[in-house]
């Protein structure tokens, strides 16, 4: 039974996430964007790692969350925490609506459907440029601070805010995984044909987890809006959906920490490689991906787990 109690390694990991405040104060804005991407990858892990839904359009929810937060800050109020909730609700509603289509498909048809739906949302945002500002992005709003702490150049508040939200969403995800619902999701992933035979409403489960993942992805999008006071079509782009999928596979899907570890390694590598070699960094990132697949099948955590203690 996947024991629910906290392993010491987990405590060490989360304490380590506080190190950047002291050890690398100049990298806090990067750290905040890693935390946001980690949350986005975690939301994808819920549906990919735990329910077997491969999505190439997950950025649709990230972007809807980002735009909702941006529009609220522009037209209504700039208090971020309530903006976060509103963004979660907005992307959750979209997630619930799309889940009715998504759960009816599998394999390549599912992947291409999520891709198509993602691109449609992207085009909608582009053509509704009066509302969304089109390709130039949403202009004329600024989120000054969160609970009194100002967002500044150093990104200290941004990282603290992103990390706090990531940690709370992680706790929720951990609770989901170790709950009966989590067990049902793993059942669907392990053997989708057996589930109806034990009376399980698989589609209802999948719709619920897809909605929860959409809420979390929307919150991640809103975090980006609040910490950078910018929203652009890029938050809805195919590139962002592909990146987060690569990040999750790199880290190792279905292990809760896969998305977070993947985000850290992928974004730090990209930042360093593009710093050294701004034109051709793609080469080194590509090499990293190929190396991980060759030597660490099932991602970094999957590979490490195989080496450290062969799965009992």
């Amino acid at each position: 039974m996947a024991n629910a109690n906290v392993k010491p390694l987990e405590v060490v990991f989360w304490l380590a996430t506080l190190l950047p405040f002291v050890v690398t104060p100049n990298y806090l804005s990067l750290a905040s964007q890693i935390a946001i991407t980690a949350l986005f990858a975690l939301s994808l892990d819920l549906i990919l790692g735990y329910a077997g839904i491969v999505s190439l359009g997950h950025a649709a929810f990230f972007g809807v969350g980002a735009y909702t937060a941006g529009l609220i800050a522009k037209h209504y109020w700039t208090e971020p925490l309530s903006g976060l909730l509103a963004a979660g609700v907005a992307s959750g509603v979209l997630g619930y609506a799309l889940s009715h289509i998504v759960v009816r498909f599998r394999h390549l048809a599912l992947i291409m459907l999520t891709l198509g739906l993602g691109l449609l949302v992207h085009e909608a945002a582009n053509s509704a440029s009066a509302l969304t500002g089109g390709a130039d992005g949403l202009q004329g709003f600024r989120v000054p601070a969160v609970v009194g702490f100002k967002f500044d150049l150093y990104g200290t508040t941004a990282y603290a805010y992103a990390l706090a939200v990531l940690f709370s969403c992680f706790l929720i995800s951990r609770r989901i995984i170790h709950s009966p619902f989590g067990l049902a999701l793993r059942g669907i992933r392990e053997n989708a044909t057996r589930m109806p035979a034990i009376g399980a409403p698989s589609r209802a489960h999948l719709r619920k987890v897809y909605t929860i993942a959409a809420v979390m992805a929307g919150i991640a999008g809103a975090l980006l809006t609040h910490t950078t006071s910018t929203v652009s079509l890029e938050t809805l782009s195919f590139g962002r959906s592909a990146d987060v999928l690569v990040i999750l596979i790199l880290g190792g899907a279905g292990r809760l920490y896969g998305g977070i570890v993947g985000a850290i390694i992928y974004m730090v590598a990209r930042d360093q490689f593009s710093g050294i070699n701004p034109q051709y960094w793609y080469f080194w990132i590509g090499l990293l991906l190929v190396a991980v697949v060759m030597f660490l099948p099932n991602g970094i955590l999957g590979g490490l787990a195989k080496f450290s203690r062969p799965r009992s």
Partner: protein
Amino acid sequence: MKTTWLAAALGAAALAAALPLHAQGTVRIGLVLTLSGQFADAGNQLDNGIKTYMKQHGDSVAGKKIEIIRKDTGGPAPDVAKRLSQELVVRDKVDILAGYVLTPNAMAAGDVSAEAKKFMVVMNAATSIVITKSPYMIRTSVVLPQVMETFGTWAATKGGLKQNYTMVTDYGPGHDAEAAFQTGFKGAGGTIVGSVRFPVANPDFSAFVQRAKDLAPQSIYIFIPGGAQPAALGKAFAERGIDLNKTKVLGSGETTAEAALKSMGDTALGIITAWHYDYKLDNKLNQAFVKEFYAMHGRNPDFFSIGGYDGMHAIYETLKKTKGNTDAEAMIAAAKGLKWDSPRGPMGIDPETRDVVQDVYIRRVQKVGGELVNVPFDRVPQVKDPAGERRKKQKS
């Protein structure tokens, strides 16, 4: 619990700041460009312009050595552009922010320039409101309304055209160009008979060109981004066989850029465009610039390159006036009203709007010595950005 975090952070930040400030004698420029992804070529050509300037004018000015730190945003990504700009200010202690090929990236970095009080030089992003994002920002590339509204007015007056059908790419700059051209054209008595917008990722234009051909308006106006699209449009024109003496084709400078002309071939003959630069401009400064550029990079400069070249010139001139002092207030004051002769012709920085003021050339594609060239046959001197002027009137 929260306060301890922040106390630790502030302590660390102070520690970092106490590091010895980088050697007094250097001026650091943080250059944020799109060096990878779909707009990599624009970023590279801009960078090549900068390198050419520094080769011609050396890498030190007013007794200070110029050091450039390059960062890649990988495409339109305002969150990444803002973070990179913040890191350049906070971590690399740059004195000047420069580059910015795309509008969303320039807008996001404008906030950093304003908040961190850093002199900022936009070397390409062409949307008008970019300049309003920071009081310490100047622009040395081009402003869309500056060219397109002028072109619209010219087309309906000296161009002798009464009808026009506009075809633009469906994204920020496309919408701006469409609005500007139509304002100028209608303002001067012309009528817009229709308009269409291409999807951004549009590999094939034949349907649109066919539609325009069927409508057979007196003239067509086109605005598309650089890269693969001008070539694809050129081929669609070649295949559709638009009859150029019946339908006048007007376009932005990018429509008949060097690569586009190469693939369009003779069907491009007669296309009229308006732009602020072409590598074939025959003045001494430009010939020297093109020769040096080609020697260094094995290809001809384009309008991205001239944006970078003049951006560096503006930085050098400003530093000379402030004698190497990189304080943003001093630099912006020195930069306002700057005037100089550039390979593109006489240009300057508008003292109030801090935006670029330059000549707008009206050119026609002709064959010169067996080669297709944008031959300028008219020029509208020292044009200010009309949208900027309107903003000034609203404010006062």
